[in-house]
């Protein structure tokens, strides 16, 4: 009797421990971006202290420099969580700067902002309609849009930078403190919308299983349409930050390649490329992570070309670590 009960207790305890381990294992994978961020941060803090890594201005710079990517990536989290992709955000950010410049020339600050966001609204609507009504895969729609927007911007400006004639524009979008403010604002709003509203649930359900979502009464087309609109509007916002930062000037090529950094940040942050799972805080940390690596490695004196190689490698490692083992399901 006693033997038996001891054995039972041991078994139960062992069971509890494995259960705990399993649970922590799953968590570990889910939080890999935060762990990775912390680990790299500690390594840089220890090795690069003499080069000024830990100086508050350097640390705040990481936040500031991440803001453009982070703002666009918050919306991209919704796009990818709904099992779509938006490749047009980079070119659109460039065009938004140009639109802001033209707007400012006709109506100052207000027109600058309205023009930039209006361009985003227009492009997002076109993307959304092409994906949901014409039913062209978003990869193709937004890839085409990438070229069209870039070409349009280059043609209308004769490839010249367009000054934004509103000094306040630079303060609102480009100043040191405001860039951090925008990053935080988008991160907070994005987190709330994805986790705490019906819209967020609809996006996750649509991306997780579109058929089941339809059978649950969700209009998945509507969900996808609005996700594209949000993505484009946020990309335009990112474009305003970008333009304000680059001499308060809009130029068609400023956003070139931005879409790739944005997608990398989203994937690093734990959003599934196949949809159905997404984390806005993860995305923001993904954007910070890429910036952190760049910042630290630059301090070591590496060239930016070498830096790109290492950045790419680290992203592969981070995503590989997060990979769920097959068969667990």
């Amino acid at each position, binding site marked *: 009797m006693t033997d038996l009960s001891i054995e039972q207790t041991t078994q139960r305890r062992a069971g509890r421990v494995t259960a705990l381990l399993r649970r922590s294992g799953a968590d570990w994978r889910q939080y890999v971006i935060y762990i990775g961020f912390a680990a790299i941060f500690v390594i840089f803090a220890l090795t690069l202290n003499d080069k000024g890594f830990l100086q508050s201005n350097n640390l705040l710079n990481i936040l500031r420099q991440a803001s453009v990517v982070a703002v666009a990536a918050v919306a991209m989290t919704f796009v990818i969580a709904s099992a779509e992709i938006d490749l047009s955000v980079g070119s659109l950010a460039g065009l938004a700067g140009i639109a802001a410049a033209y707007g400012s020339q006709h109506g100052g600050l207000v027109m600058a902002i309205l023009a930039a966001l209006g361009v985003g609204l227009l492009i997002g609507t076109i993307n959304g309609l092409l994906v949901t009504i014409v039913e062209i895969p978003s990869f193709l729609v937004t890839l085409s849009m990438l070229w069209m927007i870039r070409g349009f911007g280059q043609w209308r400006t004769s490839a010249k930078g367009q000054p934004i004639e509103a000094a306040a524009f630079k303060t609102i979008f480009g100043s040191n403190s405001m860039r951090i403010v925008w990053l935080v604002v988008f991160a907070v709003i994005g987190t*709330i919308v994805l986790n*705490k*509203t*019906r819209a967020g*649930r*609809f996006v*996750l*359900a649509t991306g*997780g*299983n579109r*058929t*089941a*979502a*339809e*059978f*649950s*009464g*969700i*209009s998945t087309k509507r969900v996808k349409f609005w996700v594209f609109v949000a993505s484009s509007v946020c990309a335009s916002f990112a474009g305003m930050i970008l333009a304000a930062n680059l001499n308060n000037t809009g130029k068609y090529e400023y956003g070139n390649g931005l879409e790739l950094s944005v997608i990398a940040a989203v994937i690093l942050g734990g959003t599934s490329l196949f949809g*159905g*799972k997404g984390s806005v805080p993860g995305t923001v940390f993904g954007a910070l992570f890429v910036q952190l690596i760049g910042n630290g490695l630059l301090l070591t004196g590496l060239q930016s070309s070498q830096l790109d190689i290492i950045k790419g490698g680290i992203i592969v490692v981070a995503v590989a670590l997060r990979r769920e083992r097959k068969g667990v*399901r």
Partner: protein
Amino acid sequence: MADHRDDGTDSPGPVIAMADICKSFNNNVVLDNVDFELLRGEVHVLAGGNGAGKSTLMKILQGVYSMDSGSIEINGQPVNIGSIHAARAAGIGMVFQEFSLIPTLSVARNVFLGNERRSSLGFLDDADSVERTRAVFADMGVDIDPTITMGNLGTAYWQLTEIAKAIAQDAKVLILDEPTASLAKDEVDALFALVRRLTDNGISVIYISHRMDEIFRIGDRITVLRDGQRVLTGPIADLTPADVVHAIVGRKVEGAFEWKPRSVDRSGAPLLEVRHLNVGTRVRDVSFTAHRGEIIGLAGLMGAGRTELARALFGIDHIDSGDVLIGGQRVRLTNSGKAIAAGVALIPEDRREQGLVLEHSVRDNLLLTLLGRFRRGPLLNDRKGSAIAAELINELSVKTASPKLTVGRLSGGNQQKVVIGKWLGTDPDILIMDEPTAGVDIGTKTEIVERIRALADLGKVVIVISSELPELLAVADRVLVLRAGAIDRTIERADIADEHALQLAIQGVAA
């Protein structure tokens, strides 16, 4: 190079002899000492209800599953079929129900897929494969251009191409699994003519079907499995449809599956009225009514239009013509949102594909239809949501370690309970359940059957689609028998003697 296996093909013994085959999945015996013999040039029908073990037996023959014990001989030689590849090499061809063809390739390339013809230089020889495909089609007596792209052909041609593919690989045994499910009548005739032609050439056919008329038209012999055991083998000429139905059904009605007559008040206006509904080619001129508290059973063979009717009533499939009235009001069911607003809920056929977001938690799945119920301003009130989820989990006794567990990790029965819970929460007036007990354990089946009765007792209309007749007979007050998209018969439950009688009605065979 086509390797010829002339050795033994002329021997008088069976082409395939499977003996004492046993197979269990997790202590669940699926095949219990089953014998199966296939003679040269015969059409051998394999029949049995859901879960009788037919598909497991065939998967063992094809090398998809390995048997626990037993033996397989091909042409008198003991063989060890360890893989699909080994089965192919032994001359066993399968015509898949879900076609294994690639729509973007030509017919000839599909026929030789994985078995490509090569020129002497080692390059693919498309001309040769086109020629050979043409020859195979000529042998089969069908007229298909081998160079046409697969995707441009209709279902019937896909099936024929599948058969050609098996023949091109020198198959001596063809397994046809419900081959007529999606064929029109003249296509069925053509298929049967082909089957005859093949057997005349010495090819043996294993023909899996539920349809009594086909079984008696095409079959030479039949083997019936029930609950993993062989209950009948014999020449079809010696049997009547009633014998076969009896062998398939057996006698087993116990516990919750016993019918309890219920009283339904049909004096007032019906809650649901469907008038002359047409949906594509699959639902034709369907009219019926249902009163509060009534359980309607939809019976019919696969492809009879049951699921399509359900989908149309839930706003998923486009209604071409006809009216749906709920509580006397005409409703336009153009999408699922409108159907839900009109008080309709559908528990879909395929819970994994249509019912659940498998990677999301039990809680999130349960709440997906209920997000409007726990809002606080624009935000969701998580605490209230969790309370609703906990209530549903408790109410349906879903066995889950935590509401936060990924729903894909639950057992089939518990997953099904989550799908049901998701819709119970919306408190629908009309609940349609499409195969609600498919793939769930017997305990959960009982619970679901009792749940259906309880819901009807609350004054809801419950429409149950099920291929499991005992279940249909246990709950239905009235059974609508669908056939080729139209209502063939409407039978009061009290007028159905037993499962046997219903099976005959579904088959359209006079008792």
